[in-house]
């Protein structure tokens, strides 16, 4: 009984079961081993699923044997197969190599619960990406958020501000999820179904009703809260700064990406182009906040003294790029978002791993602790340098390709000021990356930093450089981005409900 037809269910089930089992096991080493095994198997499963999607176009899996609108179905097309592989891939790179970092930052008796929470968070995110049912999406968002609140709070052993950051994250996350729940309630009331594909069909002729419009508005606002779009981004900046670094690495490269994926799924597949861009001013709303996110996020990043906070604000700006591409409503814009989604996950994950190495060696990650580490930690410094260039979007890195498509999309939509904002954003990125690199290579003027004992263990810079290799590959090879563009075009056509 080959398991291939069951792959979609297993992709979510394996991390879930592993998470629960690890919650029971009391031994830290075994917990790490099980977690690594589970994350690698899940990544293999997502690749198998992606292969099936390549062959069959859209893979549909009815849960519990009940057909679509009656029961819950998993619906995987090119778009979410890509995001599934990305989330599982990042987990497969970060979890196995996080042992040293976790040992240093999380109290010893909490390790098994830490890995259980990490796997449940990954299971939640994979579930969110794979599901085809709106309410199921809400429950899975809650799981991935609840685990994230606890994981961020775990950073308290290093800095007590992790607790306030986690509390703020919980309040904003819950309000966001509740807005989403209300929005879904309105749409359920208007269409009578919770299945995304069925809802898309029924919404087609309900564009006039105020209920549908309010539902769309609340779903968009709820998702903006989840994505930490500009006005409501403060929780993310604090959460990423004070959480344990391997948690930040995982969340920075997956949590926001899943948020963006859901927004694409809702705006393009469920609401459809006409409802979200013609009737509702979604594009104006998202574009305005995206541009603000880019400018304010980058300006904030330049001012920061703690490198994790700098990278967190840089994430706020990068989310601005993602949402900008998504709000343009054109194939070019969407391709830009998809390429940037992949690139930002790789680059930001690598950067946070590198910062984790510095925290491992120096005990903190402010500019003072990073001064002149290039001499004793050349590979970590190299990872920070290449990652920084990837953030700016220097040619031959993935960042450039996505910037190219975002600008082209903006120009094609006739919005040249938006294009200028994108470019000014990357100029500001030059500012904060340059400041970081000058501190790392030339040392902060006027301070003599404690010399790091030596290069961090390979479990830090190896995965970081591997991820950066991916980002450069994305920037160099046309076929890789070609595949993404096809996925984007597919999503634009409404993902064939």
């Amino acid at each position: 009984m080959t398991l291939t037809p069951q792959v979609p269910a297993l992709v979510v089930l394996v991390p879930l079961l592993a998470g629960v089992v690890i919650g029971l096991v009391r031994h830290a080493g075994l917990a790490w081993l099980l977690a690594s095994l589970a994350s690698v198997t899940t990544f293999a499963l997502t690749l198998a699923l992606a292969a099936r999607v390549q062959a069959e176009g859209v893979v549909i899996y009815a849960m519990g044997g009940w057909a679509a609108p009656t029961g819950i179905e998993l619906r995987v097309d090119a778009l979410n197969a890509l995001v599934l592989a990305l989330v599982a891939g990042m987990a497969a790179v970060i979890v196995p190599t996080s042992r040293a970092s976790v040992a240093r930052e999380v109290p010893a008796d909490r390790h098994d619960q830490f890995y259980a929470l990490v796997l449940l968070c990954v299971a939640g995110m994979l579930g969110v990406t794979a599901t085809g049912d709106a309410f199921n999406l809400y429950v899975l968002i809650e799981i991935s958020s609840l685990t994230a609140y606890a994981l961020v709070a775990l950073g308290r052993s290093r800095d007590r501000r992790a607790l306030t950051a986690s509390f703020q994250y919980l309040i904003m996350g819950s309000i966001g999820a509740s807005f989403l729940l209300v929005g879904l309630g309105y749409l359920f009331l208007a269409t009578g179904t919770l299945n995304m594909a069925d809802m898309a069909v029924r919404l087609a002729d309900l564009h006039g009703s105020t209920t549908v419009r309010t539902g769309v508005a609340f779903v968009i606002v709820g998702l903006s809260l989840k994505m930490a779009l500009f006005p409501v981004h403060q929780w993310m900046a604090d959460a990423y700064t004070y959480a344990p670094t391997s948690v930040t690495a995982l969340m920075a490269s997956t949590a926001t990406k899943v948020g963006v994926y859901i927004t694409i799924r809702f705006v393009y597949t469920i609401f459809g182009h006409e409802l979200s861009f013609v009737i509702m001013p979604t594009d104006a709303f998202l574009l305005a906040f995206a541009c603000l996110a880019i400018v304010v996020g980058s300006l904030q990043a330049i001012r920061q003294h703690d490198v994790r906070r700098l990278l967190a604000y840089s994430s706020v700006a990068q989310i601005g790029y993602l949402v900008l591409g998504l709000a343009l409503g054109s194939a070019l814009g969407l391709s830009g978002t998809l390429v940037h989604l992949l690139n930002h996950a790789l680059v930001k994950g690598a950067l946070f791993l590198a910062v984790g190495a510095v925290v491992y060696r120096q005990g903190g990650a402010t500019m003072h602790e990073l001064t002149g580490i290039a001499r004793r930690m050349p590979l970590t410094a190299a990872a920070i340098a290449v990652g920084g260039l990837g953030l700016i979007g220097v040619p031959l890195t993935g960042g450039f390709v996505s910037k190219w498509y975002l600008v082209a999309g903006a120009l094609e939509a006739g919005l040249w000021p938006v294009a200028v904002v994108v470019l000014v954003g990357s100029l500001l990125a030059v500012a904060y990356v340059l400041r970081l690199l000058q501190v790392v290579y030339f040392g902060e003027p006027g301070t003599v930093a404690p010399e790091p004992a030596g290069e961090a263990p390979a479990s830090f810079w190896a995965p970081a450089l591997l991820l950066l290799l991916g980002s450069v590959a994305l920037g160099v090879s046309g076929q890789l981005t070609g595949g993404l563009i096809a996925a984007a075009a597919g999503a634009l056509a409404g993902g064939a409900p």
Partner: protein
Amino acid sequence: MSLLATGLFNLLNYWVYVSLMMIGLYAVIAKTNLVKKVIGLSLFQTGIFIFYISMGVVSGATTPITWTDAERLRLGLSRVEVAPERAAAALAAVEEDGLDAARAALGPLAPADAARLDELLARPYTNPLPHVLILTAIVVSVSTMAVALAIVMEIKAAYGTIESDEIVTAELETARAARS
């Protein structure tokens, strides 16, 4: 305005849930005490539950537990004066050939009783789906409250206060001390 005449009144349920969510949202944003914020959050979420359940309500419906025809008939007969032997015949008839045959077997009834019986026999069910969704949502809301309160307890242990503005001032001082 036509809206006021008919529509507004029976939309009352929806307007109650709107006011509950507003109260909850106000409390979460305005209150500085962290426990009060958590209470506000729970109010905000229970507001949504009223919306979902009143969405599933069907006027004159029973609870979504399937009634067998025999049970319907027995309840109907208990609410209506009818000769015992005719009632027994109807109950026997309902087993084999269903409700309408049993109804016929009962024969003529007083008009009020007949109307009440028919109304009881044909009662629809409330929509079960919103109930399922809300069962899940309640549990999620309580789980979030549990984690939130755990965090508040830890904040009290770490900062010595659960007033958000005092926490902010405490953080500013530590930051200033660190920088000097």
